């Protein structure tokens, strides 16, 4: 039983032959496409380490079957920076020390990028904390994460205004 799907991953269209229908998007990325930046912390949608963007929306890739996302546009942590230039969220995570061990970090960053796009938190720290609560950090880097999201949001909003002005 062979299944073939096409995915646009970080801007590159890829034809993926799947011999097994059980493969999740997370395991596809990590074990078959050598995109190991996305992490598996629980495999049950409880920790958020596997957060990626699918068609612009943040999802737990461990709960998504690859087969059911034929044609999807996927962004992972590997597709966020532009060459050596970090995404504003990545830069803000470094500046605010929004991580320690780094294992939840790809998921936190993808979630933050998704959240800023959704526009549902704005510059309200309480909303940021709530809307980032699907991403666990056992090291407890939450203060830095919240500050990083707020700063990145401010920088990205300012940049957008400059562009439209």
């Amino acid at each position, binding site marked *: 039983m062979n299944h073939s799907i096409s995915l646009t991953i970080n801007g590159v269209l890829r034809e993926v032959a799947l011999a097994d229908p059980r493969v999740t998007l997370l395991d596809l990325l990590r074990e078959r496409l050598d995109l190991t930046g996305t992490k598996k912390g629980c495999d049950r949608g409880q920790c958020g380490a596997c957060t990626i963007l699918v068609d612009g929306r943040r999802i737990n890739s461990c709960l998504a079957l690859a087969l059911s996302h034929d044609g999807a546009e996927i962004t992972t942590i590997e597709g966020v920076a532009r060459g050596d230039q970090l995404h504003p969220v990545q830069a803000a995570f470094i500046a605010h*020390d929004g991580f320690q061990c*780094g294992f939840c970090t790809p998921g936190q960053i993808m979630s933050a990028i998704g959240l800023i796009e959704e526009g549902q938190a704005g510059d309200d720290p309480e909303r940021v904390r709530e809307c980032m609560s699907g991403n666990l950090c056992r090291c407890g880097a939450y203060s830095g994460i919240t500050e990083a999201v707020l700063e990145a949001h401010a920088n990205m909003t300012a940049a957008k205004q400059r562009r439209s002005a």
Partner: protein
Amino acid sequence: MTPEINLTRDPAHLRHGSSIGQPLTRTDGVLKVTGKARYAADNHPPGMLYAVIATSCIARGRVKSLDVAAAKRHPGVVDVMTPAHKPELAEDPDAKGNPFAFRMELLQSDEVRYANQAIAVVIAETLEAATEGAALLSPRYQVEIARVGLDAGEPYAPPVVGIGNPAEVVHGEIDAGFAAASKLTDATYETPAQYHNAMEPHAIVAVWDGDKLFLDTPSQGMAIAQGRIGGLLGIPPGNIHINSPFLGGGFGSKGLVSGPQMLGIMAARLVGRPVNLVLRRSQMYGPVGHRASTRQRLRLGADDAGVLTVIDHHARITTSSFDDFYEPAADASHTLYASPAIRTAHEAVRVDTGTPLFMRAPGEATGSIALESAIDEMAFACGIDPLDFRLRNYAEVEPTTGKPFSSKALRQCYARGAERFGWARRPLAPRQMRDENGFLVGWGMGTATFPALMFQGNARAVIRADGSGVMESGAHDMGQGAWTALTQISADALGLDLGEITFRSGTSDLPDAGIAGGSAHTATVGAAIHNAGAAVIARLAELATPDERSPLFGAGNAGVVARQGRLHRRDDETRSESYAEILARAGLAEIDASGTGAADPAAQSHYAMHAHGAVFAEVKVDPELGQIRATRLVGAFAAGRIINPRLVQSQLFGGMIWGLSFALHEEAVMDHRSGRILNANLAEYHVPVNADVPPMDVITVDEHDPHVNALGIKGVGEIGITGSAGAVANAVWHATGIRVRRFPIRIEELVTGLS
């Protein structure tokens, strides 16, 4: 201000630090935010197979049968490792070579000693096939009744607690202490089993090449792991290469190599191909350690002036049915508060769980929440403000030993934390404050403490012909920031700027850095680096000072100073020579030297060495629903020299969040009928999420400690939990007037009392 490193044991090489003390961002930051940091399970050697452990769903008994044939029939399954089909080991995994060679389940028998124990390993071409194969094993069991909880059996006195501490310590006259008291409190506190739950599950990628073994696996102690693995397999430890550049969190659970990691190695041996084995989250609740549950009785006595006359701290703790690790919970009472009489004692009960282990602040965390609660209760019984009460009982020397402290800026911690928090406005009685929404508001505090430990570690320093430097030490970065902090120390140790040095770490072929634990890694490896740097600089000086062609000729007596890649005569700093020039004249491509960091036994016998702190917490409680929210946390800590303030703040924040979690969130709930953990997952085992964590404030109080080690480092990895847990619990009492003594504090325990 630029800190100065004083090479106290070798004043000829006084040097000025420029990197230590700087709030640098992480040197591994870009790798971590771009997904390029390669953790163990990110490695895919060619031909790699996937191994999945099948685990027991009973807590005690025997495996009667496994349907190996069904698993093997599944497409993609390559082999099934069982007690009847596995590589031979050179050593019995139940042999107890030393107290810290913990017994592990490596399929040596059909016995089940706890739920989630490995009973077979399925190896397959894909993760999906291995997972399905493990499910198809359909084990049948002979079940025995599981022993669960603190009353499961007859308690006994453990031989030692923690790392070789006596189970009972008596200081002064206990009976006299009680007789002298005009106020007595007697309260019993319970703390649950907790699981480390590092975000990265234990993982191993094992590759055999003849009798050489290459491992990608997270380790807080690579050399110890090499020894243990080599012993079990009957190969020299030097044949084992461990690659552990990044740990996705450890917290103690990756301090010693675990059974599942060994099973991955055995699976690779069995099939003759590289094998990846990653634990499922639920499988981390058993074979990789946990914090034991405790029941602690604290009886305190105080006189009319609010001065303690006795502290009697008794702890009952659990350990596994088959091995010994005893959480030293009562030892928290040894150092914090002055009292003419102190007794700490432990008793243990065997239960059917995996063996408990070190978990961030083992003993200190469990003991601290009980002690800080008891102190709070006594302060209220005496009608004294909790901070004032702690100051009245301030320990000027270590109470149980009488030793002076090597340094102790706890008074400043109390003062600065209280000021920042606004503690002076706290009403003495509980349930006096409400916010604008009608929520009950409470303020609580706790004292933080953790010993300033040193283990042993080594480093090698190199100066190269171009004047640049290399520092090597097989240290472990589990998120605390070893890559960064040790690079900073390396730069200063070599007298070079950060950009001119390379710091190599994270693999077992580098000098043994000991174990990343006990909040001692920066101090231990930092001292090794400091000494290696001093030694290589001394070698440079030996090349230059006897040489008439060097501007440093004859400086041997006055000594030299190493700074920014040059040696300067100490008595005439205008006379200097660069490292590159010295090596060029000597015709050397590089020179190297080694250094060791270890505790100074003389200093340790003279001084008690501890970090301290004070934590203040505000909580708000819904008067109808009993819902508790921590709304403010302020911690002031004195922990010797701070290598990197940015990373230290993060460590202290993280510790305080663990304290908050201890008080309000985390608990492994045991099913008393089956002995299984009911919430072995991250949805139901509550660790704080971002929304649970209030705005926090950390103050680091300057502390110069000339005794702890050459760099004056005390360590900050664990102290943040202590004090914080008690502060939050005391704030809940202050908000509600209800004293909950079983942790975590739950809504249901408040809601009946509130109505």
